[in-house]
């Protein structure tokens, strides 16, 4: 190590001593895996006009992939780029095998109310179903607990997108949620699932089909990820 490198380390240690924190280096986003929810024989939520969730998620994933490549310069991998059936494990497996830095699963919501609208951003809920008689079998622990070490980073990603979506005039309502989602469980990387809006609502379904609303959804997710990227870049105190 040369004198300059040694001097940087001394300065960082001194800063850490003064601020009471330890400098942390976080990895930048280079590879993002986008997962268009459902597909093939699994059509997902069916809209009132006959539109299917699997089609909307694929359109949005392709548009988001282009935006992320152009604006962030990252490599984007889609779990599917056509109408094909994939298991949940195949989707998460793509993200793990690509050694990606972020996994985002795109979905469209459904509800028993025909009036519910808005975006929900989910991260994995930490074991609200464990307990006596509810423990995972030992052979499943590696997959079931893969996301555990990324809870904090996943929540930071979700929070960054949430903040952008909350400022949007087109997105009527945005919520941060946690749930035991199967597609996030085995992800050994920061991961979240975005329910873009509700297809059980006629007004939201019509809005989802417009280019303007799709562009806004792409913008808030992209800018949320850019904010997250900024918070990671370089040395962070």
């Amino acid at each position, binding site marked *: 190590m040369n004198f300059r490198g040694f001097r940087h380390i001394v300065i960082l240690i001194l800063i850490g001593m003064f601020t009471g924190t330890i400098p942390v280096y976080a990895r930048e986003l280079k590879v993002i895996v986008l997962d268009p*929810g*459902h597909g093939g024989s*699994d059509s*997902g*939520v*069916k809209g009132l006009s006959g539109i299917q*969730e699997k089609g909307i998620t694929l359109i949005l994933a392709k548009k988001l992939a282009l935006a992320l490549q152009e604006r962030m310069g990252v490599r984007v991998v889609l779990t599917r780029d056509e109408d094909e059936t994939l298991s*949940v494990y195949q989707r998460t497996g793509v993200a793990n095998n690509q050694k990606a830095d972020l996994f985002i699963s795109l*979905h*469209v*919501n*459904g*509800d*028993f*109310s025909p*009036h*519910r609208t808005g975006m*929900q951003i*989910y991260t994995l809920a930490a074991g*609200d*179903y*464990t*307990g*006596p*008689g*509810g423990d*995972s079998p030992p052979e499943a622990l590696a997959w079931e607990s893969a996301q555990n070490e990324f809870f904090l980073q996943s929540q930071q990603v979700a929070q960054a997108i949430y903040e952008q979506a909350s400022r949007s005039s087109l997105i009527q309502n945005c919520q941060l*949620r946690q*749930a*035991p*989602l*199967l*597609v996030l*469980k085995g992800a050994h990387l920061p991961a979240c*699932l975005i*329910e873009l809006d*509700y*297809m*059980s609502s006629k007004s939201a379904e019509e809005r989802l089909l417009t280019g303007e609303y799709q562009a806004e959804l792409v913008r808030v997710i992209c800018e949320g990820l850019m904010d997250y990227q900024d918070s990671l870049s370089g040395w962070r105190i």
Partner: protein
Amino acid sequence: MPIIRKKKKGVIFGMSTLWAASMLVSILVLSWIVWHKLQARIESLPEVIKQLQTPSISSSGKVTLKLYFESAQTGELEMEEREFAVTPAKDSSSKRAEPPQLPELAHMALEALSSAPPGNKRLATLPKGVKLRNIYLDAAGTAYADFDEQLAERHPGGTQAEMITIYSVVNTLCANFPQIKRVRFLIGGKEAQTLAGHVDIKQPFNYK
């Protein structure tokens, strides 16, 4: 030598007979006491289970159950109490009326979740036509709610709707039957990964 042997044999025979007889009587008395104690406990056991398993039934033959519906406004679960008229079944052997047991009351409660309560404030949380095939309870307090395939086929899908369905069932069962600590879902008698593609239902859910 022959005299000594004869005398010794008689003494030994007398003592051992007395000892064996007293031991036998003691064993018989102890067995009788233990048997009667066990019998009394076995006879009282079904009554204890009935008290645990069933919410109280009023003198007019009604039971009040707690049901969890989705709030139309917030999208969260809300509890409301509803009275159900129960017809006590006649026990053919003893000719006395038996109060409904856990499976019957659980069927009543869960099938009520398919219909929205009057008014527009609360929504149904199970699709119409869904049937609870059976419900089982293990010794650890895990209930297995076995729904027919209609639950997956008719479900609207989406994470919000799946979470609402799951926790409305879990909370309704746990709130009415204290011995149910957690609930596991089966569809058509089999384990399933999800209801409609999102929430992992391979493991039991706790009361929330």
